């Protein structure tokens, strides 16, 4: 059996690793971007000088040989699904028995005039990083359009080299289509505090050509103002990188359509990660979730399915995390930007305006649904178990220290949140648990 995986991001590599654990198949991973798997989320740190490219590679070169995973740096141009062959750019043909498509995403471009000029780019591939490097020397100013995670990452990258940055954000507050209002406001303040020029309610009109095919500025749609700059970052989200498959026999919508076993409409062909679109997404989940963790879980699921153990993709309770400049962010469970009808929010924010805890629970049943943390670390397992066990808010608040994952000596804020809850509800709850690992382990070992 020969399993070929196209794409060596976290999804493709996870599937290769799990296939090796579960089977004796010949495994080939093909990517044109880089020979070795690297952590895409760490691209920014290379530019900022925190790490070298090799440091972003989670496995040493010997790992692949030892685990008999063949790496091939090639560009696949054509797939013949009937003959089960792949064609590379260099004309080579590769036979497969099963095919995993882990093609990833590409940055969105919304038809802005000038979007294909030199000095314009997203942040997704190593090649994007090289492009940024190319324009960075003597760069006087960079403009970034898009108010999401990657936009801020790019802003932080330029900022780390003392290059002034302007961020054009369509929304009235940073990332407020994902963050609740207070947290969104907090990050907006934080961005400005760092000296990044954050322009809210602002759209990119067009990118100005300097006459030689290189960007020299942008024009703001609303005001017509021209901002001179030597680099324009396009970070208005990503979409599945499947353009070259669109006309083939494989069924696609925005992404490659897959069933709950991550199989496409074609036998023995699977799609995972950013490029996969669930035909029937699980309740509360989006059909395409372009994040690290779902890619990893899909990679594991697909390996089971390929090896004949049918497993439905189930990523469990939602979680995610990020870091906005100096503020860490973690989320567990349901956390809509605008509370649903039956949601009750308990929100506490530190006086310094850079830390907060939010717990969402059901108004009627008082069952806890989600956690949102800014500048504070919570334990994944504990939050997950509370949500899974349908624990009531009173119980969670009394035991909240179990979730605390901040380093030793850090001030603990569970008491403040509890006090706020007591003030709001007239209850008189007290903290019952310490954050000691012993207690946490005891709690986690009690099966619901």
């Amino acid at each position, binding site marked *: 059996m020969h399993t070929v995986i196209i794409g060596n991001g976290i999804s493709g590599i996870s599937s290769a690793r799990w296939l090796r654990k579960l089977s004796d198949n010949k495994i080939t991973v093909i990517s044109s971007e880089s020979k070795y798997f690297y952590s895409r989320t760490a691209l920014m740190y290379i530019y900022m000088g925190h*790490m070298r490219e090799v*440091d972003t590679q989670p496995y040493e070169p010997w790992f692949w040989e030892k685990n008999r995973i063949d790496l091939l740096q090639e560009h696949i141009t054509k797939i013949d699904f009937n003959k089960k062959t792949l064609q590379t750019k260099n004309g080579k043909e590769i036979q497969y028995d099963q095919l995993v498509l882990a093609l990833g995403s590409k940055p969105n471009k919304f038809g802005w005039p000038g979007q294909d000029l030199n000095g314009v780019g997203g942040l997704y591939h190593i090649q994007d990083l090289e492009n940024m490097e190319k324009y960075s020397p003597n760069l006087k100013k960079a403009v970034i359009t898009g108010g999401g995670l990657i936009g801020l990452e790019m802003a932080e990258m330029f900022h780390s080299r003392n290059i002034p940055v302007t961020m054009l954000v369509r929304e009235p507050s940073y990332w407020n289509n994902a963050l609740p209002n207070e947290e969104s406001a907090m990050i907006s303040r934080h961005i400005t*505090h760092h000296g990044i020029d954050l322009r809210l309610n602002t759209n990119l009109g067009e990118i100005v050509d300097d006459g030689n095919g290189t960007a020299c500025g942008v024009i703001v749609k609303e005001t017509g103002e021209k901002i001179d700059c030597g680099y324009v970052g396009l970070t208005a989200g990503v979409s599945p990188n499947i353009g070259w498959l669109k006309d083939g026999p494989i069924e696609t919508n925005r992404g490659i359509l897959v069933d709950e076993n991550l199989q496409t409409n074609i036998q023995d062909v699977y799609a995972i990660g950013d490029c996969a679109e669930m035909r029937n997404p699980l309740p509360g989940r989006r059909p395409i979730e372009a994040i690290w963790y779902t890619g990893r879980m899909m990679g594991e699921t697909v390996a*089971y399915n390929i090896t004949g153990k049918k497993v439905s993709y189930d990523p469990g309770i939602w979680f995610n995390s990020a870091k906005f400049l*100096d503020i860490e962010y973690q989320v567990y469970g349901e956390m809509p930007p605008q509370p649903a009808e039956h949601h009750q929010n308990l929100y506490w924010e530190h006086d310094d305006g850079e830390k907060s805890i939010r717990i969402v629970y059901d108004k009627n049943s008082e069952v806890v649904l989600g956690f949102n943390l800014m500048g504070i670390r919570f334990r994944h397992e504990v939050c997950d178990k509370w949500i899974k066990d349908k624990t009531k808010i009173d119980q969670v608040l009394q035991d909240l220290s179990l979730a605390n*994952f901040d*380093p030793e000596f850090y001030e603990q804020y569970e008491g403040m949140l509890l006090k706020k809850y007591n003030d709001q509800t007239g209850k008189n709850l007290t903290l019952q648990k310490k954050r000691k*690992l*012993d207690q946490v382990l005891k709690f986690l070992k009690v099966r619901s």
Partner: protein
Amino acid sequence: MNIIQKIGILLFLVAFLIFTLMPGLNKFTLTEDTLKISNEHHRTEVLKLAKEKGIIGKEQGSNIAFIKDLKSVLLTAQNNLNEQFSSSPPAGVGEWDFKMADWQIKNYVRDSITESGSGWVTKNPMQGFLLTFGLGILGGLLFIIPKFAQPAGIKNDGIYHSSLTKGLQFGPKMFMLLSTIIGVLIYGYKYNNGNLFWPLLTGIIALIIVGLVFLYEKEKLFNPPRSASVVLTGWLGMLFGIYLVGFYILLYWAPHLITNWMTIVSPVSEFLSGNKASQWFLYGLMYTIIVLVMGIRMISKYRHNKYQMVRTASVMFFQTAIAFTLPEILVRLNYPYYDFKNIWPLNYSFFFDYNINNLLASGNLGIFMLVWGIVLMLIGVPVITYFYGKRWYCSWVCGCGGLAETLGDPYRQLSDKSLRAWKFERWIIHGVLVAAVVMTVMVLFHYFTGSASILGISSDSLRGWYGFLIGSAFAGVVGTGFYPLMGNRTWCRFGCPLAAYLGLVQRFKSRFRITTNGGQCISCGNCSTYCEMGIDVRAYAQKGQDIVRSSCVGCGVCSAVCPRGVLRLENASGDINTRADEMRTIHISEDQVGIL
């Protein structure tokens, strides 16, 4: 960088330059008073020759010229005395009371030059001190203090862009390492008066370790190590490394060339202990100042992280109060020099006869010091390590750790994270532990039984070689000199026998571990990159596996640099061995999705 910081750097560089030139700045005049020879036969002969050659009272422009003259007189005197002894042996005088030995020549040169300074430095030691240490501290602080005005948070921007901190390519790095090792062995051969036994044995052991890694552990010779990069070569770091290596060579093996440095810190020494400064006082004072100034830098860098601040304050305190000041005060009060936090086998001379005798002869306090040292080693180390891991010592108390965590912080990313490096590490560090134990057992055997050798190996020569090879060359020259080349914990990771001992306790019987936060790891690699001990933290974190490693010094930087809040240093009961096996990342299996 603002204008104040630029001025700071400039002042620091000026101070650094003056300090570097200082050994060549003084003038020297040999007088009858400053010729430090107590043996009357030697003194008479040397003085006679010196007067004949006219070097008594003659001012020399540099230490090198002074030493050259004095040495030629001493060598002539040695010859003359030898001839006199063979032609007409003086009555009633032992051979070596009359003849002059090579080691005595060394001592006479060192002692005389220390006293013979007559130039600006000797006349103005305070000014000299202010122009070097004072100006350096001022410049350093001017550079560091403004950092407190910047937003708090992880500040690793540009580390791999700076020529000072980005490290070397694999080739140049290995060249530096190998040439240092070979240099040490060749010098050791000379140091050992041409005895080939120890240098040869050391070379053989080194080859055995290489063999163990490549043959027994089947490491591939040409496996590209991940630590190496093809494009980076930090020339400034290389120069800084060479400077540090040079400093340690002068300090350990040529102190007569750096008496001017001792002269300028003598006022401080006299204030503390009442004695003139030796090279060890000079080193201790520099060490302490560097730990303090760079400690402030460490705090400015991690001031959002209370664990780092407390820990840094702790190493600053232990270095200043316990390692530096207290022993000086003890000396002033006529008690033995004693560093209460230095533990055998890092403190390898603890069981040497002169130390034991000295402590036993110093009354109740001396006895207490002896008992304290033994209790700390036998009970303190295992008990405290059981509760908190080896970090209580390595990154909270230890002086070597203190320097590594302050001066060395900009270089922590240069440690080699490859599996190959780990293989070398385990053989070398445990080898040093075995060597320390064997050496100490032999020394104690000698002490208690009076028999000076076992199996034809003399305990004195073994302990001499251990002190040279491990105590000076490894801990000092390579340990600190290689900060900009192999990271700030080279000694702690590969060489420290106490770290090996603490590590064994930590690995097999301790409540300490680093836990990972469910499935939150994004494999970015910040933790591994900034692990000064070269632990591939990410390899554990991305599997949701706890980290239980003997080498972990618990500095907490992996947890600090993690952008997703994945790592936490914890102490908890329960068997760490089974804890470490559990993988708690989210797993999909046939019937369930589960964590834990």
